[in-house]
């Protein structure tokens, strides 16, 4: 039992698997982005080189800042993302629930944004504080549609919050994305996830042209490596969560594996395309977009789900 849990967290759906897959997904992101701009793009193991290089660099602690928070934030973020990866991964791959349900996943993903805010505001740098402030605003903007979107699979599967129950419901009654409420919720969810990962067009906190690197500006060496790794792992966690909630997970046998890989690549490439074809929106535009347009849409999806459409 304990061996199983340790294996789950550290090796298969957890840290090792998600980190390796995430670094490869990050390579795909950079490569596809480069092809969009008629460039060649980085070699296959570029992100691994970046990660190991950052691990060996000097760590600089800022004199005026809160040092323990500065150090703790990226490590806690890594722990949070690893936990989400474990919970989502065990439900997807081995059909067990790792002692947590959808509410915990939502809570942990929100906690990650809070950790970015704490890490960004701890060094006392003006730019990183501004980035942290923008992260708060983005969190306010995207949290409501994201929660509403998560409600749709819960309602459709007969008010069950267990991830495995949502999967079981979909394997019996067909994919949720095939129904009206599911399709609506998936579209809103994709955009909300884009904002949760702070990818363009919602890279408002990081905004490299105005805020240098946003909350991560003062980070160097291994701590920066962990922030980068967290961002790459999110490229795995969020598509997996969307696949679990709306696309019926990964069927374990035969052609199902190929179909599962295709689902993952489709969602990932969709995110990269959205990322590459949209410029950054202003903070107020982003909040208006999420509150005026996407939240009513998500609410409509919830109502439709209650009606059973």
């Amino acid at each position, binding site marked *: 039992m304990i061996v199983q849990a340790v294996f789950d967290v550290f090796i298969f759906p957890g840290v090792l698997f998600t980190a390796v897959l995430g670094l490869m997904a990050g390579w795909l992101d*950079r490569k596809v982005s*480069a092809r969009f*701009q*008629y*460039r*060649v*793009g*980085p*070699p296959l193991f*570029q992100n691994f*080189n*970046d990660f*190991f*290089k950052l691990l*060996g*660099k*000097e*760590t*600089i602690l800022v004199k005026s800042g809160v040092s323990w928070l500065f150090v703790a934030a990226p490590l806690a973020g890594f722990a949070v993302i690893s936990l989400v990866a474990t919970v989502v991964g065990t439900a997807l791959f081995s059909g067990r629930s790792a002692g947590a349900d959808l509410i915990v996943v939502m809570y942990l993903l929100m906690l990650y944004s809070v950790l970015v805010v704490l890490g960004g505001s701890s060094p006392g740098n003006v730019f990183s504080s501004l980035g942290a402030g923008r992260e708060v605003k983005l969190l306010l903007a995207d949290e409501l549609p994201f929660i509403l979107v998560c409600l749709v699979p819960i309602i459709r599967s007969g008010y069950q919050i267990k991830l495995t129950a949502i999967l079981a419901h979909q394997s019996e009654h067909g994919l949720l994305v095939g129904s009206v409420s599911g399709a609506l919720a998936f579209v809103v969810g994709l955009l909300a996830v884009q904002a949760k990962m702070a990818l363009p067009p919602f890279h408002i906190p990081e905004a*490299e042209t105005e805020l*240098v*690197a946003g909350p*991560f*500006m*003062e*980070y*160097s*060496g291994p701590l*920066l490596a962990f922030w980068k790794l967290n961002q790459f792992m999110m490229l795995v966690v969020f598509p997996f969560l969307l696949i679990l909630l709306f696309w019926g997970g990964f069927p374990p046998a035969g052609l199902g594996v190929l179909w599962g890989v295709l689902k993952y690549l489709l969602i990932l490439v969709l995110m990269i395309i959205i990322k590459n074809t949209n410029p950054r929106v202003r903070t107020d535009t982003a909040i208006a977009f999420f509150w005026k347009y996407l939240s009513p849409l998500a609410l409509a999806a919830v109502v439709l789900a209650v009606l059973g459409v």
Partner: protein
Amino acid sequence: MGWYNKRLAKSLWVFHVSASPCNNCDIEILDLLTPRYDVERFGIKLVGSVRHADVLLVTGIINDKVAPRVRRLYEQAPKPVFVVGIGACPTSRCCFKESYNISPLRETIIPVNLYVEGCPPKPEAMIDAIVKLVGVLNG
């Protein structure tokens, strides 16, 4: 250390220090990121924060006004960090060498590892310089 240096050589993140340049070299540096040259093939990336940098590209004539700033930027960068002087100004001071506000020898301000000559240097020359740096790192 050999293994680490190979990783470092494959992922040099570049930070751009403008020490009062005329902007010609800066434009040529940005050329390196365009589809024609695309240095991301070698893992080179332009970063905005000096805390993320592995290579400082110094352009321009380092005069009395910016010399302390350049020194401070070098101290803020996490080590190991390399400094590349781009263009004729940091190399030989170009036409400004008789000027009244020129700092003393640039080696006393920051240790420069590599110079790229030219006014402005061609992007090919800069890629050549980076390849030499990578060669030194790889042993």
